[in-house]
């Protein structure tokens, strides 16, 4: 009898232990996941920052409407997101203070950098020092990434050292066949465009087909290019590559049209990347037949996670109707896409430890396909998957242009038209 009782109690105890075991393995779930983010509501980077911020808020609202993110680390429980966002007003000094505040005062679980290399640049060393993983939305400066820093990953844009290679490939290949022999490179002196300009110069010098005849940097706050364009024209280049932020591209394209100078190939970054914003400010005629990157806002990738581009645009326009002040463009997609990476990261991470976050993000590399293309990371955290095709803003009906992908051939949906 005694042995039966003993066996029964052991069986009961083991049963209770078995029932309790999973609950004990899963740590206590937090009431919310805090995500810290910076944005710039004013200043020169507002036009690339606000779309990212608004799109990320859209993702947060959608996720919280479903009860939050389902986290395996906490037994599959849905945990809501709390977004703590501060306005750095496009100031790197303010951004540095606010990155520190998010980490040391708010103790955020996840940290998202402001849009663009300039405002990301101050966050990279701060995040590293505090061993906080930084979700770098679009800070593509090559100097941010090194193999001894595991606390960063670039989300949406390819790192600046590889991003512009389709431009040089096109000019060295199809451009060269069409008689392009010389190129002028005018860039804004910051991590984003400075690195791209240096990379392009290196590509041209390596391939020795197209010669760089003008290579000048200008301050990022340059708002007038008339004399610079005249100086470029004096060198008589076949192609002109202007690498700047939105305000730079607006001023350059307007001044180019005003100057009456014409070049066979003109490239700007934001002519395509923020097509609506640029068109609105410079007019259709100033961008017609210029070249640019083709971002995901103008190219239909088939997502395996999240909304398609059309669905996202519809959701954007519902939440931010026309006239609300922030234009839809590539940066809106980058913001939403960052939300998707965070979602998958939180779903799969072992814990909220920053190295576990790192492992979860890197585990997505090559496997995550969103409306922005394939998310693929290099060992140092640089984005190498989402390389944008080269496109041209070609006439489409009366007083309109469409962005046509022209290179590489496997991604092209049109043919480039070079000037005479």
């Amino acid at each position, binding site marked *: 009898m005694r042995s039966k009782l003993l066996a029964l109690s052991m069986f009961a105890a083991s049963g209770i232990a078995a029932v309790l075991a999973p609950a004990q393995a899963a740590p206590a779930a937090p009431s919310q996941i805090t995500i810290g983010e910076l944005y710039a509501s004013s200043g020169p980077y507002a036009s690339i920052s606000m779309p990212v911020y608004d799109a990320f808020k859209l993702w947060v609202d959608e996720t919280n409407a479903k009860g939050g993110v389902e986290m395996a680390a906490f037994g599959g429980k849905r945990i809501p997101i709390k977004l703590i966002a501060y306005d750095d007003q496009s100031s790197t000094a303010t951004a540095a203070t606010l990155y520190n505040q998010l980490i040391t005062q708010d103790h955020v679980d996840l940290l998202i950098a402001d849009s663009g290399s300039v405002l990301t640049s101050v966050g990279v060393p701060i995040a590293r020092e505090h061993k906080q993983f930084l979700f770098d939305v679009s800070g593509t400066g090559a100097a941010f990434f090194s193999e001894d820093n595991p606390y960063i990953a670039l989300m949406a844009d390819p790192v600046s050292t590889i991003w512009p290679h389709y431009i040089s490939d096109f000019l060295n290949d199809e451009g060269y066949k069409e008689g392009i022999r010389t190129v002028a490179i005018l860039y804004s002196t910051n991590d984003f465009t400075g690195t791209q300009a240096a990379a392009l110069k290196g590509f041209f010098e390596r391939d020795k087909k197209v010669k760089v005849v003008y290579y000048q940097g*200008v*301050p990022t706050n340059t708002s007038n290019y*008339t*004399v*610079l364009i005249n*100086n470029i024209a004096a060198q008589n280049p076949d192609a002109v590559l202007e690498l700047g932020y*939105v305000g730079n591209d607006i001023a350059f394209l307007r001044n180019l049209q*005003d100057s009456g100078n014409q070049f066979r190939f003109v490239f700007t970054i934001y002519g395509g990347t923020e097509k609506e914003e640029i068109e609105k400010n410079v007019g259709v005629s100033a961008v017609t037949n210029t070249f640019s990157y083709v971002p995901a806002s103008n190219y239909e990738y088939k997502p395996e996670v999240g909304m398609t581009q059309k669905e996202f645009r519809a959701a954007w326009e519902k939440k931010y109707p026309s006239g609300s002040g922030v234009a839809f463009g590539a940066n809106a997609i980058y913001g939403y896409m960052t939300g998707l990476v965070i979602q998958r990261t939180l779903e799969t991470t072992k814990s909220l430890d920053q190295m576990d976050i790192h492992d979860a993000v890197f585990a997505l590399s090559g496997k995550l396909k969103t409306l922005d293309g394939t998310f693929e990371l290099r060992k140092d955290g640089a984005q190498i998957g989402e390389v944008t095709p080269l496109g041209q803003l070609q006439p489409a009906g009366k007083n309109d242009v469409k962005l046509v992908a022209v290179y590489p051939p496997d991604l092209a949906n049109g043919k480039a038209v070079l000037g005479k």
Partner: protein
Amino acid sequence: MLIGAVIAGIFFGLYFTLVGLGLNLVFGVMRIVNLAHGDVLMLGGVAAWALFTSLGLHPMVSAILVLVVFLVAGLPLYYAVVPRLLRSRDSEMLSLILFFGLSQMIEAMTTISIGATERSLPPRLMGIGPIIIFGTRLPKAWFYSAAASAIAVLAVYFYLYRTRLGTLTRAVMVSRDEALATGIDVNKVSAVAFGISLALAGIAGVFAPFIMGSITPNMGVAINLTAFAVIVVGTLGNPLGTLLGGIIYGVSLMLMQTYLSSWANLLPNLLLIGVLLIRPEGILGRKVRRA
């Protein structure tokens, strides 16, 4: 390239004469520093943008409207702010703080109203294609803005030297206390000068989208810095000095863009430091103080 840079610099500098003229007038008459000057300029640009997008008004028409509205708006603003400021013990220093606050308010309210992104006017409104001067291609808008600036300088001179109110204004510029003692309605004279200053900034703002590519709510601070460089180089309080300062700034900037482009944004600071070290009273300093 040298000749091209100099020619472009003269035209570009003439625009910055227009930018600095109002700021200098306010300092000359009231000895206060209007740190919201660049934001008033921005409002002029926003007004031109709003009038074009909502009513289709050509910027030249908008410039006339802006001139009138800003001139009139300057009068109550003067009476609301400046007399109290001038009664304080350190009005120059307090004016910095007060107008900095006003500048922040204008920027914030504009951002809330129209958003933070770039706004501009179609380039075709000023005519597509360049004007070619000695082989240098310049946008037509530069020509129009330089013409507007020249007219503004002449109008300010006409006002100061050919009108009774202008004569009284010059008296206030020499000594506010003595003008007051001789029975001049100093507040009336100053209010008109303040209104003219805002009107000049507003007109400069109408041309800003064509000169700077676009306007944004936060552009005021950079404009102020440049405008200060222009009027300090020329001489604080002297409209003719503003013309000289503007041209020196414009030519220097274009030469920097041509030969040392990466460092071009240092120019306003270099000019300010250089003039303050070598000739603190400005290039036309003496003449003015004894005018």
